[in-house]
């Protein structure tokens, strides 16, 4: 332990400054004011206030957590200091903001914001409001650490659910199953208020979530011992079947708004799985991946659009061509760039992505690709009498596509080709010295990745019944890349997690749309700092211990004097 008693105060001061800095940042970015009227609990706590005070909660908690050995009185003082420092910084912001004109630089430094920070109290007294508020927040954090260990997790889960449901009031009321009548009245007028949860609703949700979490955590400990492998297997099968049924019913349960988000997320999952082969498995950084999506989409468009009237194929007739063209494009790009490594490869692929977009945009190919207008009235798939012409029905085709693509990616990962990809990723020269044909292996990665994106493109074109060059921007490539990085490079479940977090979540949080890139940056930095291997890291298959390992190595092992190797020190 530190001997210097002033160390804890220095640390508190520092953490207070950081918390205050973050609070100022979120205020100036506009998050606080924009969500000042969006209540979590109606009339009590708004989303803006939570965003403002969250850094103080967090840093007070972290400080106490790191100094759990200190006496209660010291901890009380420390949290008070953190709150005071952060609060004074906010007061300073208000004073500076109301005396000088900051709005030229910070558009959001408005009187409304300052009014919020001081809670409408006029000045001399108002200067005290932010510090008091922040000290209170820090003390709430301290109070939280006083809760006994076994209640802490249930209670934090309860609070989390209240926050989530309160923030998502509008989105939850859009779910179609909730719009069924008795349910809608209950939710709309009882649990929710005009904005956020009603007080009673918040209480009910808090009690429910906390109670459930506490109940399951105590039950789990009791049953853990009795579960046999066979029972585990049956519960897993039941779990998978339940998941399958849930996935199948999702569009009906959730309704149109969510089906649209599900479709988009699905397309991104498909692209993510493809790019994961190129970047995650084979380690080839591809920054122009959207090109293959565009090629798939445009091929589908050119071949089926009745507006263009060039070919007029059906969706299913055009699909093989879309896949073939995307696959060939993968080969075509692969051939010249195979000699490049790392940064060079990234730049060339970036260029390729832009070339494809500009070609689609160009006047030169206007006759076939439609130029800036793109292609409209693209055919939608149909099987016999069933027409996949709505967002909700196309969902099933997208899910089917994801299942196929994920299966192929998963099988390839464990195959000879998958191992070669990973060897190339780890060390290209050594992989070649082990007899791996670099050209062929990289081409396979590129073309397989392109194929998956082509499939996503064809489905995406059918979903919108149109394609535009403006939707094929560099940002899409970056989106896909970021979701792989955040999910976990080379990890197949990671792609799903990454897509849900980076595409699904922003889709739901429409109000946050403006702050989407902000959120991306924050998520990237946090993941890189806290979990550099991603949210769901790549797992290596266990191959050695599948069977009894003693068989097969007898002849050579016998001749070896055992002492030869066992005398080697194990760690060095």
């Amino acid at each position, binding site marked *: 332990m530190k001997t210097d008693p002033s160390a804890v105060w220095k640390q508190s001061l520092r953490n207070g400054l950081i918390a205050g800095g973050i609070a100022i940042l979120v205020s100036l970015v506009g998050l606080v004011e924009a969500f000042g009227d969006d209540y979590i609990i109606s009339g009590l706590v708004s989303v803006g206030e939570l965003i403002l005070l969250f850094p103080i909660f967090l840093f007070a908690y972290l400080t106490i957590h790191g100094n759990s050995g200190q006496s209660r009185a010291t901890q009380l003082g420390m949290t008070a200091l953190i709150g005071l420092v952060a609060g004074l910084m906010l007061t300073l912001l208000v004073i500076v903001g109301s005396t000088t004109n900051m709005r030229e630089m910070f558009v959001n430094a408005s009187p409304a914001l300052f009014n919020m920070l001081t809670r409408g109290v006029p000045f001399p007294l108002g200067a005290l409001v932010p510090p008091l508020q922040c000290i209170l927040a820090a003390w709430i954090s301290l109070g939280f650490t006083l809760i006994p260990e076994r209640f802490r997790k249930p209670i934090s889960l309860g609070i989390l659910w209240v926050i989530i449901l309160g923030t998502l009031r509008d989105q939850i009321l859009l779910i179609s199953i909730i719009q069924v009548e008795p349910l809608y009245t209950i939710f709309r007028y009882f649990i929710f208020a005009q904005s956020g949860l009603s007080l009673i609703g918040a209480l009910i949700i808090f009690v429910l979530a906390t109670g459930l979490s506490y109940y399951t955590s105590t039950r789990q400990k009791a049953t853990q011992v009795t579960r046999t492998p066979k029972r585990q297997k049956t519960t897993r099968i039941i779990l998978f079947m339940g998941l399958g049924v849930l996935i199948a019913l999702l569009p009906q349960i959730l309704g149109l708004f969510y089906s649209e988000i599900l479709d988009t997320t699905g397309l991104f999952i498909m692209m993510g799985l493809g790019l994961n082969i190129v970047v995650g498995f084979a380690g080839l950084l591809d920054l122009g991946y959207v090109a293959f999506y565009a090629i798939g989409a445009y091929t589908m468009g050119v071949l089926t659009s009745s507006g263009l009237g060039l070919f007029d194929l059906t969706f299913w007739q055009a699909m093989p061509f879309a896949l073939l063209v995307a696959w060939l494009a993968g080969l075509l790009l692969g051939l010249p760039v195979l000699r490049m490594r790392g940064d060079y490869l990234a730049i060339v692929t970036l260029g390729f992505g832009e070339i494809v977009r500009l070609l689609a945009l160009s006047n030169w190919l206007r006759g076939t690709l439609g130029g800036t207008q793109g292609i409209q009235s693209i055919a939608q798939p149909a099987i016999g009498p069933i027409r996949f012409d709505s967002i909700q029905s196309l969902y099933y085709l997208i899910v089917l596509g994801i299942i196929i693509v994920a299966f192929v990616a998963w099988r390839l990962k464990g*195959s000879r080709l998958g191992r070669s990809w990973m060897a190339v990723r780890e060390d290209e020269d050594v992989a070649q010295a*082990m007899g791996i044909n*670099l050209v062929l292996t990289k081409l396979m990665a590129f073309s397989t990745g392109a194929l998956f994106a082509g499939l996503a493109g064809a489905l995406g074109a059918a979903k919108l019944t149109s394609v535009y060059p403006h939707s094929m921007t560099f940002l899409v490539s970056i989106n896909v890349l970021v979701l792989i990085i955040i999910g976990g490079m080379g990890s197949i479940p990671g792609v799903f997690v990454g897509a849900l977090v980076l595409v699904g979540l922003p889709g739901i949080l429409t109000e946050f749309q403006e702050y989407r890139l902000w959120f991306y940056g924050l998520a990237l930095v946090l993941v890189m700092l806290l979990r550099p291997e991603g949210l769901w890291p790549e797992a290596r298959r266990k191959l050695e211990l599948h069977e009894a390992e003693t068989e097969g190595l007898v002849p050579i092992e016998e001749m070896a004097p055992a002492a030869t190797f066992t005398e080697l020190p194990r760690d060095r």
Partner: protein
Amino acid sequence: MAVLTADKVTKRFGGLDALQRIDLEVKEQAIQSIIGPNGAGKTTFFNCVTGFYTPEEGEIYLEGHPIVGMSPDRVAKRGIARTYQNIRLFKNMTAIENILVGMHPHLRSTMIGGILHTRGTLSEEAESLAEARRLLGFVNLTGQGDMLAKNLPYGAQRRLEIARALANKPKLLLLDEPTAGMNPSETQATMNLIRRLRDELGITILLIEHQMRVVMGISELITVLDYGAKIAEGLPQEIQGNPTVIEAYLGKGSAREFTIAPSTEA
């Protein structure tokens, strides 16, 4: 018959002659060494043999077939495997996967087979897995096969690298400083292993080594390089007393006072 024959191999980097008209012959089932001061061109020679560099002049034959100009993967398929001076395993793959990659040139399964799990692919995978486990046991890594290569201790990494090279089923194995950074008992264990590779598996071995104890104890023939040129070749005892060699290592005039002997290397 010679497994490897180098015929006047010359490699230049800009103005520097890294290798000058090197002749070298490695007899079947021999254990031979290349020694020389730092920068003598030993590793460059290995890189020429494995196809990583293409020599400007000269020819290299593997069992009578010229291999200059072949890409490294084709050379590997023809039966030359190597290890590296600074261990170069596939760090984020497990030990057993490293060995499976080494088997790559001898496996036939295709992309389609891998996706559909055809019968041929499955049986081939099962066989190669059994073989990989056997090799893992051979280098005494049983039980550590599912560890990531980067998490293995140093000595184990060296042995895994040899196992990976063995998975290539080489006729000729090139070992680049196999005992670098090892203590005396590890060094002794590695020497025993090298002998067993030759005696039990019939693999011809060419190694680069700095520890004189290893070189003198294990080699049947030693080639000495200095500034890219071959300055001596002979049996260990011949090299130990060779004045040119001593001069190359210790400078002019040293030959009168010193001999290179195992005892000088502690």
